[in-house]
């Protein structure tokens, strides 16, 4: 989805504000939420990380931007538990004593057809282009690199293709590639000539550039 979560390159955000000696968790509910996220995987049939990530991406955009990381984690995890029938929203709201906003539903027709690429097609040094694709569901190619050309730096092992697995579709393993883009190819007016951005991209997201 062309969603709020895909923040790379967005203007309008302010200063980074690091905390000295930040604790692992600031408040008890954060630790509890972390553990609930982990254990909940056992209660969710065919749970996978892609479906979980997408459950957070589906949050109301205003809620997403405003929520702390662990509030996003709780919202996504709970939305999946409710959607899968493990928990009941009304019951949770009664327990919480107030509104418990869930993520929005998965879009109709969330996956676009991309042929499976079980045989890795690319090698170190290859020039590739990211497809200009805009599915309504889960996708892990950030928008800032779609349609852009880069060079394969490294071939990583095969991992589950997230676009299908997030939506209960085909489980297919594909190599991912560390693809290096010149920063100026992504944002012509910014950065140095030597600056680059490396994005880790599944085989299906790419096409060969024939020179």
């Amino acid at each position: 989805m062309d969603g709020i979560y895909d923040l790379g390159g967005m203007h309008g955000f302010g200063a980074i504000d690091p905390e000295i000696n930040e604790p692992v968790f600031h408040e008890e509910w954060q630790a509890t939420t972390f553990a609930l996220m982990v254990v909940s995987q056992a209660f969710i049939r065919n749970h996978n990380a892609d479906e979980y990530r997408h459950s957070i991406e589906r949050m109301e955009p205003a809620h997403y931007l405003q929520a702390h990381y662990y509030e996003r984690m709780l919202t996504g995890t709970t939305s999946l538990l409710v959607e899968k029938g493990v928990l009941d929203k009304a019951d949770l709201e009664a327990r919480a004593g107030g509104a418990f906003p869930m993520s929005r539903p998965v879009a109709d027709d969330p996956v676009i057809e991309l042929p499976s690429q079980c045989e890795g097609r690319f090698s170190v040094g290859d020039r590739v282009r990211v497809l200009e694709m805009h599915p309504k569901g889960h996708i892990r190619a950030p928008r800032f690199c779609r349609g852009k050309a880069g060079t394969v730096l490294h071939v990583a092992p095969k991992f589950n293709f997230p676009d299908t697995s997030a939506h209960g579709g085909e489980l297919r393993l594909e190599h991912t590639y560390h693809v290096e883009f010149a920063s100026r190819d992504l944002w012509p007016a910014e950065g140095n000539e030597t600056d680059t951005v490396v994005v880790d991209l599944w085989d299906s997201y790419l096409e060969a550039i024939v020179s």
Partner: protein
Amino acid sequence: MNNINRAPIADRTEAVESALIDKGLLQEEALEGFIHAAHEWKPENGAKVVAKAWTDPEYRERLLKDGTAACAELGYAGPQGEYIVALEDTPERHNVIVCTQCSCTAWPVLGLPPDWYKRPEYRARVVREPRRVLSEMGLDLSPDIAVRVWETSAETRYMVIPLRPNGTDGWSEDRLASLVTREALIGVALANEPQD
């Protein structure tokens, strides 16, 4: 729709926990183990990996070739560490890590990520204007040094091997490790200089 008065987040968390317990799906103590584990994943682990790489050229080579195995040698493995790639800073190139779309990090060697890493500001900005972000965070890089930003968009989890500071000849691994912060492992800082 956005001005909904949500129940306080602590109450929402407790609602989920109590509902799972009442359904018999969860025993309260079960959560403790995961919370304990979260405290074992910490940047001190990555710092030890870096210190060893600084002092042991063969280890450095193994780390660059197979980060996952080299971290596991020191006992650092687990979730979000299934495929670790170590990024070598050089005098000519500085590496920095981000996850623009969520907040993926190599938990076993970096720990759960800090809040600033997970907030929209860092995620939006560092891919597009890394020099400015680094400068605001206290790291001014010479224009001669290339910046390579690594976007954690798939399953690879990165850690940066910063440059070893001058004036640390003959230091022990433990002492060297004390110079390597979480910020240095992410690439928004250099390793600390030795204090005189």
